[in-house]
């Protein structure tokens, strides 16, 4: 059949010449190719010491944001859970008591908020659904664990701490909510 790419080579089984039977030139030629690779530009990083920047749209571990005054943005509206195609998110809402205004932004808050990181497919639909700019996917990686139960992240792992704020200003879905 006619070759489509015209790059095919016809295989021949004619007997090898004396030089070919020596094999040495072919071995040396191969070793030379290997040697020249030493001086090429490296394609890999020395990972733990060097890291590569994530794309701004990278979807890694979730964070539950607090606002500028440290109040939790999440109001347990359930839109992330209903948007989640993997059904990884569960929550239990509670009413904010008097005197807790510095902790929660709205009169309702998530008492329990859990994401099962084994179910999560990091599609980012929860971030897109969130009307309160509470949940974001970040450039952090979900660490490996030994127990399955350890992959169910509660509020202790998801809510950012005030001393170590997570920067989400590069995310595409920031600025959805206009300040009152």
């Amino acid at each position, binding site marked *: 059949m006619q070759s489509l790419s015209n790059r095919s080579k016809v295989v021949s089984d004619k007997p090898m010449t004396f030089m070919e039977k020596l094999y040495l030139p072919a071995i040396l030629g191969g070793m030379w190719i290997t040697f020249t690779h030493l001086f090429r530009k490296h394609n890999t990083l020395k990972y733990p010491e060097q890291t590569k920047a994530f794309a701004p749209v990278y979807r890694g571990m979730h964070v539950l944001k607090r606002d500028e005054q440290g109040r939790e943005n999440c*109001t347990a*509206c*359930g839109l992330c*859970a*209903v948007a989640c195609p993997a059904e990884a998110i569960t929550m239990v*809402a509670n009413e904010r008591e008097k005197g807790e205004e510095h902790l929660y932004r709205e009169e*309702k808050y998530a008492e329990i908020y859990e994401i099962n990181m084994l179910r999560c497919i990091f599609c980012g639909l929860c971030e897109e659904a969130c*009307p309160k700019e509470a949940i974001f996917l970040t450039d952090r990686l979900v660490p490996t664990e030994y127990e399955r139960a350890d992959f169910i992240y509660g509020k202790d792992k998801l809510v950012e701490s005030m001393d170590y704020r997570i920067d989400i200003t590069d995310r595409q879905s920031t600025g959805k909510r206009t300040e009152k």
Partner: protein
Amino acid sequence: MVKVTIDDKTIEVEPGTTILSAARQIGGEVVPPAMCFYSKLPGTGGKCRTCLVEVSQGSEKDPRPMPKLVASCSTPVMDGMVVKNTTSEKVKVGRGAVVEFLLINHPLDCPVCDQAGECHLQDLGFENGGEGTRYEEEKRTFDPVDIGNKIKLHMNRCILCYRCVAVANQLTDKRVHGVLGRGEHAEISTYIEKAIDNDFSGNMIDVCPVGALTDKTFRFKSRVWFLKPMEASCECTKCSGKTVVWMFGNEIMRVTARKDQYGEVEDQDGKTGWICNDCRFEKKDISKWNIIGPRKINRHSVISQGNYTSPRQTIKKLN
């Protein structure tokens, strides 16, 4: 019988029928939305103006069009009347303006509100509302108050449809709540927050088109789209006992009356199926109910989001 044409669909109805109920007899897309009109409560309607329609021909004898958009819930049909609802550009603009006015003082706290997912104002805003707001002034605000120990009133969310006042008028002889004040200062209230202790006061929650009156026993418990509505019945001496229980797993989160496609309480045994407060607030134990089966929910409603049975049936129908 008089002949009326709504959006090129003709129907014959009894004289004295309103345009809205004639449209409901046709059904489908021609039905104008209604926030304040409630067919089971005489005296409601004519307040919210969302059901505005254009009458392009007044009647057979007098074919002049009506000069302004009319409220279809309180305008009776005439023989040979031609009404435009979805086909009229004027209605579209007018209804958009009504939605904008209704939302002027509405807090839009849907993520917090228990009514979200079954809220008529949400549906109305979604279908007819604009993308943004032009209102820059302060919204009027009230603190949430308790009406009795089972009902919470969020006056912020109220659109003053007067349905709850009508339900109290028609179910009880001693109404203790009403609308106080006028204009922007109008609010649903009871004198000195007097508790409403009537066996049927909970029906105020069912007739409220927004989240102004909510069930305190269900307050922030769950979201309606996580619950499975099941038809249930129980032995009740006060009411028909025919309700919908909203279940999460094997737990009954809340109990409501059975509502039809227009959000109105259905008739049970020949009368409107209002349910009593005992059934609504007290019976949260599954052993007290006889669960009949899943409630039919519109496939496009967010409440049926976890229901995977209907698409397969649709495919079967297509084949």
